[in-house]
């Protein structure tokens, strides 16, 4: 019996070592530096500076508002897209092509894609040219430097996560449930609402949590599309590490964002679990 145990230990060692070296260790370093002063003494001053200042709460509110809206829009766009791919497309090759189209942008870096949006959304960019050409607006609409611009960029980058998780959940649903519902005389809308939607909820919730966490922590997209005129929390963290060099305050900002995000995600997870069919 000991032999398999040794095997197991050996097999587990690599991933555990990897996890400890590249995740736990840096996290501990950051957490420690957030509660120490320059001379190494323990202090809560960095947290007091953050939490007792209305400015930080304002920035947090902007950050979470953008992340929530991103998640909401991603769900509204991603769910129908997943539905189309799983339920409506009959031709396998086309479905495969669509999945590839959704996944391929993930292979390009966020920086490149955000630069692309800077060009598209600019005053003289394609979007404004189109809107003016169609006579929808006379003057170019300002997207860069607005929350709308940041939302467009984040939704574009994060929608694939919803499509993939919801699509997976939809594909696993046995259509017999829906047929049974129809046999019992329930209309398609009510079947969707009471049968299909609850069954996809676990997938939808995990997709939403993923999108929310990535949107809260996103740096490159908001930094580029905000044009430095809107501040989200990750930008404050970056500033402290890259130009102010106050690693203690920067670390405290990071941990604050992490803890608040975890709290929100846990709450969301609870809600998702609560509705899960028994």
């Amino acid at each position, binding site marked *: 019996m000991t032999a398999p145990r040794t095997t197991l230990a050996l097999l587990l060692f690599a991933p555990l070592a990897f996890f400890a070296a590249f995740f736990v260790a840096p996290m501990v370093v950051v957490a420690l530096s957030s509660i120490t002063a320059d001379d190494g003494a323990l202090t809560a001053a960095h947290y007091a500076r953050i939490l007792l200042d209305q400015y930080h709460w304002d920035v947090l509110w902007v950050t979470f508002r953008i992340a929530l809206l991103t998640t909401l829009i991603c769900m509204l766009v991603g769910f129908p897209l997943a539905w189309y791919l799983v339920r409506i497309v009959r031709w396998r090759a086309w479905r495969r092509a669509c999945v590839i189209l959704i996944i391929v942008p993930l292979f390009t870096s966020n920086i490149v894609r955000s630069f692309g949006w*800077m*060009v598209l959304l600019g*005053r003289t*960019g394609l979007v404004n040219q189109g809107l003016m050409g169609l006579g929808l607006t006379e003057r170019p609409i300002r997207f*860069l430097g607005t929350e709308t611009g940041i939302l467009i960029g984040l939704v574009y980058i994060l929608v694939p996560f919803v499509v993939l998780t919801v699509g997976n959940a939809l594909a696993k649903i046995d259509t017999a449930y829906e047929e049974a519902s129809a046999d019992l005389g329930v209309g398609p809308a009510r079947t969707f609402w009471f049968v299909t939607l609850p069954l996809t909820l676990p997938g939808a919730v995990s997709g939403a949590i993923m999108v929310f966490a990535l949107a809260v922590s996103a740096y490159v997209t908001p930094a580029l599309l905000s044009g430095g*005129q809107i501040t989200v929390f990750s930008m404050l963290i970056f500033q402290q590490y890259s130009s102010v060099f106050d690693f203690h305050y920067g670390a405290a900002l990071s941990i604050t964002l992490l803890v608040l995000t975890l709290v929100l995600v846990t709450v969301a997870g609870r809600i998702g679990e609560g509705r899960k069919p028994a």
Partner: protein
Amino acid sequence: MARIHGLVTASALALGAAIAPASAQEALHVAWYGGNWGDAFKACVADPFTKATGVTVVPEVGTSTVTLAKLQQQKDAPTIDVAWMDGGVSELADAAGVLEPITQAGVPNLANTVPQAVYKDDGGIYAVGTGYYSLGLTYNTQEIKEPPASWNDLWKPEYADAVTIPSPANSSGVPFLFFLHKIWNAPAGDFAPVFAKIKELKPALFFDSSGAASNAYQSGEAVIGAHFNVGAFDLIAKGLPIGFTVPKEGVWATDARLHLVKNAPRKELAQKFIDTALTPEASGCLAEKLFLGPSVKGVTVSAETARKLPWGEKGSVENLYLLNWAEVNAKRAELVDTWNREIARK
């Protein structure tokens, strides 16, 4: 089971074999920046060094701040011998105690360097400049026919929503505030007038990275503003309608400096490397490739390159506004905080 053990042992051996030759070989580890900067440092300094000594140079690519972080982490057992870091970070590295004094005896070419590029403190020379770059006035030549004469032109109503200046996340952001403070003769230590004026500016964007600035000029989002001479002339070389000018108030500039790492494992070679960087050939090569203003005396560059140097066509190091970094670093946190509260929110 035995099979797995065998596999693990074999891969461990293979891994060991792969690592061993690299550590046994004598190679100089030099920290420098990425992109065209790293390419130029390699071509202008590392390749001639390798040719002369037969020692290969292993680049440790990172921005100045990342390099400083690495030096602090490996303080007790450094692997990096020589490090390039920008002005500002250089002073922080000195304060962090990760640098070894550079001496005339070890680096004879120090004698050929302009005095402004030799940085000393109580312990001796902690850094030496290898070339200046500036943040000048950059504009779209299709929209603006005459080169703008003053930084105050950025506030002209016709450029509303089409101006860009650096944000504090950029290394030039805080220094640029000091520069504005100086050209507007604001009262000593009081930045309120500077922030009040920036609040009146109608920007297209405040750029975080040099790349974001290039992108904005390229797409026409910005038609006038600040940009590094290195980035601006890169755009001009690509055929874009961009101009770079040194207005009457001058420009803020800084330099890329070389540092000898404290307890460098290969000190002799490290000194030789710094010496190579201070030859007129290396300095002229960096001017041609990156438009860095030479820090070595008597370097001649082509007329074409002279136009692109940080001090403009007819200037010299005297035309540059070089900051007292100790002052900047002392006020850094406060200015970034004020910027966040006053400027970077709607």
